[in-house]
């Protein structure tokens, strides 16, 4: 006399065996359609963007959007306001340029006259 548990185990085993047999006996048309379905599913992986691209692309887009928002908010383009160090370097160029100082030697009388005229005009 089989116990309830034994009957249950036997039922499970025999029903599973019948299921396995039906899987093994699938017809060619069904197997072929399942193969096509599998290929379609695998094509999904092939056509996905590369993982590193999908990771970095949104980050790049977000960074670009943040920069654009910052520019719009401040209303200034980068470099539109002169840097004091840049101005100092340009002045240094003028002071150290030999040509600009040489012109003083060419016509000293003119510069003396111009200085007197300016002083008289002001006075």
């Amino acid at each position, binding site marked *: 006399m089989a116990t309830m548990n034994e009957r249950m185990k036997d039922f*499970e085993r025999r029903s599973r065996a*019948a299921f396995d047999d039906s899987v093994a006996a699938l017809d060619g048309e069904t197997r072929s359609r399942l193969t096509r379905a*599998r290929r379609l599913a*695998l094509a999904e992986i092939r056509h996905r963007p590369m993982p590193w691209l999908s990771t970095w692309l949104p980050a790049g887009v977000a960074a670009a959007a943040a920069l654009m928002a910052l520019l719009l908010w401040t209303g200034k383009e980068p470099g539109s306001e002169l840097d004091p160090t840049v101005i100092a370097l340009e002045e240094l160029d003028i002071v150290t340029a030999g040509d600009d100082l040489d012109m003083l030697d060419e016509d000293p009388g003119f510069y003396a006259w111009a200085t007197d005229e300016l002083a008289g005009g002001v006075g």
Partner: protein
Amino acid sequence: MIGSATLSLPMQLVGSGGRSREMAVDQERALERFLVGVERRAYRIAKLSLRDHDDALDAVQDAMIRLARNYAGHPEEQWRPLFYRILRNLITDCHRRRRVRQGVIAWWPGGTEDEAMPDPVENAPDPAGTPDQQLEGGQLLERIEQALADLSGRQREAFMLRNFEGLDVAQTAVAMGCSEGSVKTHYFRAVQALQQELGEWQP
């Protein structure tokens, strides 16, 4: 120094892309192995649930595509319960669409009840042969299929996933979207009901 730093970035990206491509190929091979191993059993389970060849194939194909699209990056050991969870949802959707369609046909003027109602002669058990003879071999599954149709949806799912597909209780719980305790209850009641239905077959 600047030059080498400038050059090293694209090389890193190329290297990273190459590794990613190799990983994608490995992932595709692993997924193919998984699908080859599961597709026929999944079709039989879908067929037992839907009792329609084309609907079962469509459900399995959709489940494969959704798994590849959304869960290919998950650890392999999660694929089976996830796959059956997707398949279960698709089967439920298919049953729901059928009910709506049957409701519309029954309500629609000119719609015949023959189209909406199952044929009792077609669904009647085969009277030929003794119960023992019927339950042997391929006929056993036909009897089980008919008995499964009388179970509740949850009991049927628990029985097929646990006994036919061999998922453990935890995996079945993931696939069914319920607790492990519910899986045990549904499974036990399913086996009891099936044994009672197929009582003549008991040794």
